[in-house]
């Protein structure tokens, strides 16, 4: 066959859209995929970026409906107690620390990472800021200490992951174990009570009738939202999570950015440590137990993909509130713990299923 066709000779003429790994690229969705006679389930593509940034995603409507529904249940079962100012402020103050941690977690998961060490970082930062030595320098140093410890631990995660190439799950698992051990070591496993009254007065106080902790939460949330949706840092976060190779070839320093994102998550843990310390008037190595699970659950329920590239802080906020309101309602209604757990499991599933049904497309993640 010596006859050559013009143009076809060097092969590779029109390889349209060829990327064999495309589907494999979003594998964590394996479970939800396929078999339903539709290929490649599409996220709600066209509607997704209406407004250009504030993603008024249909999914959030569904999620929000779940939250409202819960509140209605809360009100109907305890009309006298649920909607009182005291109860709402209790809910928000409880949501505050885990909410702040979840803000950082949203960034991490958006880069397709995971951070199992958040709870331990909260413990470590809370312990370090409440040692007798730190307390002796007063409130300013205590706050700074918590922030720096959180940031530092987060950066260690980030550097291990970005530059040491340890997978996020393993690197943060190691930090999870080690930071908790260090917290125990530093505190001698003793709960360290805060004596600094300036600290307690400020962080346990209120401003304009709203607890300072709630203000802090709102502030961190707003700052996180702006950072994710209105800055180049946020853009890079989406890019790095969506397609690290494309981000790299567009000139983004992927490694540095990944390291920074874990640092940010650590910083959030530092802030949360301050909040927990204020709430409990102490630092303890047992603080922040299971925060990783709670935070990841809130983020994932909120619609951020574990496979990266998509993240919604608004969803995270609603996710955190759903879980907090849920346990509040349980308490108000005097449910036994074992029943609570069963109910919680069922409600999580129902919420997610409901969320799917309220929209047209089949899957969130």
């Amino acid at each position, binding site marked *: 066959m010596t006859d050559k066709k013009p143009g076809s000779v060097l092969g590779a003429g029109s390889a349209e859209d060829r990327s064999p790994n495309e589907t494999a690229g979003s594998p964590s969705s394996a479970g939800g995929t396929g078999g339903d006679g539709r290929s490649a389930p599409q996220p709600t593509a066209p509607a997704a970026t209406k407004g250009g940034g504030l993603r008024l995603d249909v999914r959030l409507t569904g999620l929000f409906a779940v939250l409202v529904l819960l509140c209605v249940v809360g009100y109907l079962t305890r009309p006298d*107690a649920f909607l*009182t100012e*005291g*109860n709402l402020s*209790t*809910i928000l*103050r*409880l949501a505050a*620390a885990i909410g702040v941690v979840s803000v950082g977690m949203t960034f991490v998961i958006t880069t397709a990472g995971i951070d199992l060490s958040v709870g331990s970082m909260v413990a470590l930062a809370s312990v370090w800021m409440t040692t007798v030595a730190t307390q002796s320098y007063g409130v300013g140093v205590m706050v700074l200490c918590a922030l720096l410890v959180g940031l530092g631990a987060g950066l260690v995660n980030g550097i291990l992951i970005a530059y040491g190439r340890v997978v996020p799950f393993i690197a943060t698992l190691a930090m999870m174990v080690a930071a908790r051990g260090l917290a*125990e070591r530093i505190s001698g*496993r*003793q*709960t*360290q*009570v805060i004596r600094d009254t300036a600290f307690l007065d400020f962080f*346990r106080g209120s401003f304009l009738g709203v607890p300072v902790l709630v203000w802090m939460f709102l502030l961190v949330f707003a700052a996180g939202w702006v950072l994710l949706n209105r800055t180049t840092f946020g853009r890079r976060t989406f890019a790095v999570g969506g397609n690290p190779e494309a981000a790299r070839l567009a000139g983004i320093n992927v490694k540095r950015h990944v390291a920074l994102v874990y640092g940010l998550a650590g910083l959030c843990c530092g802030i949360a440590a301050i909040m*927990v310390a204020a*709430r*409990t*008037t*102490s630092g*303890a*190595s*047992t*603080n*922040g*137990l*299971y925060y990783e699970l709670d935070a990841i659950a809130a983020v994932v329920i909120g619609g951020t993909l574990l496979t990266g590239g998509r993240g919604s802080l608004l969803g995270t906020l609603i996710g955190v509130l759903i879980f907090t309101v849920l*346990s*509040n309602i*349980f*308490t*108000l209604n*005097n*449910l*036994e*713990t074992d029943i*609570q757990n069963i109910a919680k499991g069922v409600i999580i599933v129902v919420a997610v299923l409901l969320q799917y049904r309220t929209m047209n497309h089949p899957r969130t993640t």
Partner: protein
Amino acid sequence: AGVVLSACTSNDAAQEAPRNVSVGAGDNAEPGPEVTIGFSAPAADHGWMAAMTAYARSQAEAFEDVTFTATEGTNDSSQQIAQIETLINDGVDVLVILPHDGAQLTAVGQQAMDAGIPVVNVDRVFDSPLAYRCWIGGDNYRMGVNAGDYIAEQMREQGKDDPVIAEVAGIDSLPLTQERSQGFADALARHGFEVSHRVAAEFTVESGERQTSNLLQSASSLDALWNHDDDQGIGVLAAIENAGRDEFIMVGGAGSLDMMDRIESGESVVKATVLYSPSMCASAISLARLLGQAKGLGDMAEHEIPASITTYSAVVTSDNVAEYRDVGFAS
């Protein structure tokens, strides 16, 4: 198979409610004004803690004038604070609180007291007496001391001057574990002994078995072993049996019925257990009711409920086990 499965769910024997501890003497037993008691405790994630919650519930049920409101058990102090706040908001008359961490819940205890709600603090103690009206609990340090003294005494009797002593502690990050270990070490030291092998389990059967299995490999021969918690003790004993070891004596902690059975049988390595009985929680409910009704303790001269009651960590051995069965708990 479905039929078989559904048949196996019912488990009456295991769900037998704990007996009530004496329901007050004299006219204290008479129904009084309605009292709503709010109850908050850590997660009932091991037998002892489950027994505490169960005692509270069944004691409350024994009084027709008591309404009992319990919250989800949690090991997160922030969460427990929120739950207690919810109870305060809800306007309960008296609070019974077993804090996951006494120091961390002091502020909220005080908050309740300030709001005029008397607080009965059980077991793990608050940092400040201002945070509770009455505290009832065991003495963790003395529990360790009593275990240590008993073991030292046995060693002396057996004529062992340099015994190999091991310790299976509970959750190591809890202050109470520290206190127990400290008491144990101090008591042994007074006899010139020391702990040579120590592991920490998590109050669960499985962790007890795991840690003890490893411990027994580390110590090829032992003379005595103290296990902090009888619930994890089931696992500790399983590990000892698995390893086929019986050259040492074992002392338990807290006082479960299961351990008492074994002590009584005399065939087991368990020779004693130092009490830390969850029955204190039943007493706490009784105290809370009386506080709510502004009554005192019947047998006492004082008009008021005392500010603190420490239960005694008696050493239960085959000699006296019969006397203590009533405070033994089903682990």
